[in-house]
């Protein structure tokens, strides 16, 4: 018998709906009606479907079976998120919580070492 968790990940939203709800109402800054969140969740689902399709297409085009961070950067460029004025690092700095930021942005540590080395 499948566990409850396994069933939920199958047809529920991709990410926890409380997270989606919190983030959306944080970004919206005005009150959001209850049924509006349903549309938000549904569009997040469509968004993830398009995203994974795009990532696969980019990887296939490069003759790979693995999607790499460079593919994501290209995708964000095509979405008009990364521009000349706002490079990826700026977006990471502005939008990501600290836990993720330190994974992505290079930090100089003692001994003149930079961790992580470079975003590939």
């Amino acid at each position: 018998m499948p566990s409850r968790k396994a069933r939920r990940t199958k047809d529920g939203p991709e990410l926890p709906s409380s997270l989606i709800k919190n983030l959306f109402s944080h970004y919206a800054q005005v009150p959001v009606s209850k049924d509006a969140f349903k549309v938000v969740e549904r569009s997040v689902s469509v968004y993830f479907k398009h995203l994974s399709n795009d990532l696969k297409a980019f990887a296939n085009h490069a003759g790979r079976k693995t999607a790499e961070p460079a593919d994501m950067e290209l995708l964000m460029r095509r979405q008009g998120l990364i521009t000349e004025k706002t490079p990826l690092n700026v977006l990471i700095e502005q939008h990501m919580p600290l836990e993720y930021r330190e994974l992505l942005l290079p930090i100089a540590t003692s001994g003149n070492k930079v961790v992580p080395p470079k975003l590939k």
Partner: protein
Amino acid sequence: MRRTVRRKTLKDAVKRHEPHLVLRGDLDVLVFLNFLLFLHRLAEEARTIAIAGKSKIIKYEHVLSSAKIILKKSRG
């Protein structure tokens, strides 16, 4: 407010649609960044539409029409 999810959840979100695609390195974290920016755009567009319709709260139809615009912009 909780703003992070387990990285496994992020990987599963992509894996659900493309089960055979392998994600390398920190790609899943970048996916989360992209997701945040998507929600940001969606919320801003919905708010603009709501205010243009002289509504003080964001309703079902505002999100619906903003989702149409933003999903189109998020195509790769």
